[in-house]
């Protein structure tokens, strides 16, 4: 899955900035060509005389949407690496209303005022100054409602199909049909309020409508790849890493990593809740294998350069399955605890008389120890001191730089 490209690692920084500059260039060129540098044209949208804003905006959204979800469905583009604006319902709606007010008073939005300014429109220049002033005031006042701004209606990275619990294709088709209906309605409004002669409108717009619906329906037919399908595409490389034991870390390395202040180690115990309650490593979170997908949004939100995920089961089987699922979803810095909980107790629990070994690890992922009670992490072996143990191991944790998709134009 090569797209989106990992620009940080592929090209130098000036080159990366040049690419973004070129994208911005195309953006500005198209905005100006469509008439977005003219405030009168933009404001006419709100008096139903000229619905260019709606047509261009929704035209762009549905074009980009169908292309995105087709390439995602075909497995060319990895959706988990695409920036999706996180949902902050309250601040989004309040901010949106304020922007609506600014739009009708000022006649631009920030992007369009830039091209207005670039084409020497004085009102555009004043608007840009206004935007800078408004941004400055926001930066100075946000502290008074910082908690509300960061938490009210926060839902994280959530898409409409996820929220509704319906397939992506269905939403794509519905959005396209809604947009086409809005285009039709917009043309009628222009005829009534703006006196536009619709017979002079080009015929190709009908073909374009048929084309976009065809694309949308194909999104529905292609569907979205399952985790297994995504793993299949990367299986050759990843299976080799598993076979070469590149990602299975020694209990000693886990212990040292947890003690290392520069690392943030997230331990995910993928066994059943019952086994987790019997014994688990201090700090490990219980996520049974069947539910591993449900924590993906949380895991993706936690990804940072210094975060390491360590998966564990009784041996390695379930942890390996979980590892494959996280790899398929492009989570970086994921490792498996070598030999699982059985090897962990075998290493750190020798002195613990309460824990009795009842079987030798057979690799079938069953717990080889019996416990007097389900004490969870209240055994000494659950929380060994890194100062008392010095184990020989080959370090395997290599931090992979996460892609910068942390701002999405909103940083």
């Amino acid at each position, binding site marked *: 899955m090569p797209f989106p490209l990992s*620009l940080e690692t592929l090209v130098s920084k000036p080159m990366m900035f040049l*690419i*973004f500059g070129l*994208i911005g260039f195309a*953006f*500005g060129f*198209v*905005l*100006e*060509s*469509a008439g977005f540098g*003219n*405030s009168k044209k933009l404001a*006419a949208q*709100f008096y139903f005389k000229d619905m260019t804003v709606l047509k261009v905006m929704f035209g*762009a959204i549905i*074009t980009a949407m169908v292309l*995105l979800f087709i390439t995602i469905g075909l497995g060319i583009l990895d959706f988990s*690496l*695409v*920036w999706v*604006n996180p949902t902050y319902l309250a601040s*989004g*709606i309040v901010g949106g209303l304020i922007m*609506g*007010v*600014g*739009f*009708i*008073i*000022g*006649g631009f*939005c*920030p*992007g369009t*005022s830039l*091209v*207005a*300014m*670039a084409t020497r429109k*004085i*009102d555009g220049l004043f*608007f840009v100054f*206004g935007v*800078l*002033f*408004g*941004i*400055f*005031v*926001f*930066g100075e006042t*946000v502290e008074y409602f910082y908690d509300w*701004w960061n938490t009210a209606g926060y*839902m994280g990275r959530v*898409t*409409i199909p996820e929220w509704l619990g319906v397939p992506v294709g269905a939403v794509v088709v519905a959005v396209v049909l809604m947009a086409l209906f809005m285009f039709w309605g917009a043309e009628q409004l222009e005829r009534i309020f703006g006196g536009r002669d619709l017979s002079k409108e080009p015929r190709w717009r009908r073909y374009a409508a048929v084309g976009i619906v065809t694309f949308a329906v194909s999104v529905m037919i292609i569907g979205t790849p399952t985790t297994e399908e995504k793993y299949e595409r990367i299986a050759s490389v990843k299976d080799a890493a598993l076979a070469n034991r590149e990602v299975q870390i020694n209990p000693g390395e886990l212990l040292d990593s947890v003690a290392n202040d520069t690392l943030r180690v997230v331990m995910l115990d993928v066994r059943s809740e019952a086994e987790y309650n019997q014994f688990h490593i201090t700090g490990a979170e219980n996520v049974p294998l069947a539910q591993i997908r449900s924590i993906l949004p949380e895991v993706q939100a936690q990804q940072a350069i210094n975060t390491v995920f360590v998966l564990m089961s009784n041996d390695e089987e379930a942890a390996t399955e979980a590892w494959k699922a996280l790899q398929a979803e492009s989570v970086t810095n994921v490792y498996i605890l070598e030999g699982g909980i059985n090897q962990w107790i075998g290493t750190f629990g020798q002195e613990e008389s309460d824990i009795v070994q009842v079987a030798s690890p057979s690799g079938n992922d069953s717990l080889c120890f019996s416990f007097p009670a389900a004490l969870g992490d209240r055994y000494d072996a659950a929380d060994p001191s890194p100062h008392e143990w010095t184990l020989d191991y080959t370090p395997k944790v290599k931090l992979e730089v996460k892609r910068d998709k942390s*701002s999405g*134009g909103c*940083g």
Partner: protein
Amino acid sequence: MTTLNQTQKNWRSRLFDRPTRPYIHPYLGGLLLGLVLFAAFFITGNGLGASGGLNRIIVFFEDLIAPAHIDRVPYLLKMAGGALNPLDDWVVPLVFGTIAGGFLSGWFGGRLKVETNRGPHISKRTRWLMAFIGGAFMGYGARMARGCTSGQALSGGAVLSLGSWAFMFAVFAGAYALAYFVRRLWN
């Protein structure tokens, strides 16, 4: 001297006095803008943005004037705290590219005339004042909503972000609700 003035005049007129071409058809504009947006996501994983870049530019100047103040405000700290350079972000070159692209398109379409677009019943000064006030609302709202029409509505809309769609309808609702009361500005 005359020749110099002449060349200067020619140069200026070639840049600014080109015949005006009509805007492209809105649906074609939508298609092209959609292709740009798709290319941005496909290549970089990020959408488009404008207010984020302006934000970083203003914070850059704030940081020059009052670096200690930046270090006390968590919102500003994230962009310019300590040795962080607020301009070191992809959205900044995007903004400069947008300005350059707009200029070239304006040149191409003969639309580089200095002018103030306004309704027939207001003076230029009123229009400038309104542009500034409207811009201030826009800037404030865009930061509150974590993105403007480009960064939230277009980009988030295309990837079907729930919050971006709620935001988009709020923008249109706000503008339509007020449109009647400020109709003298535009009509």
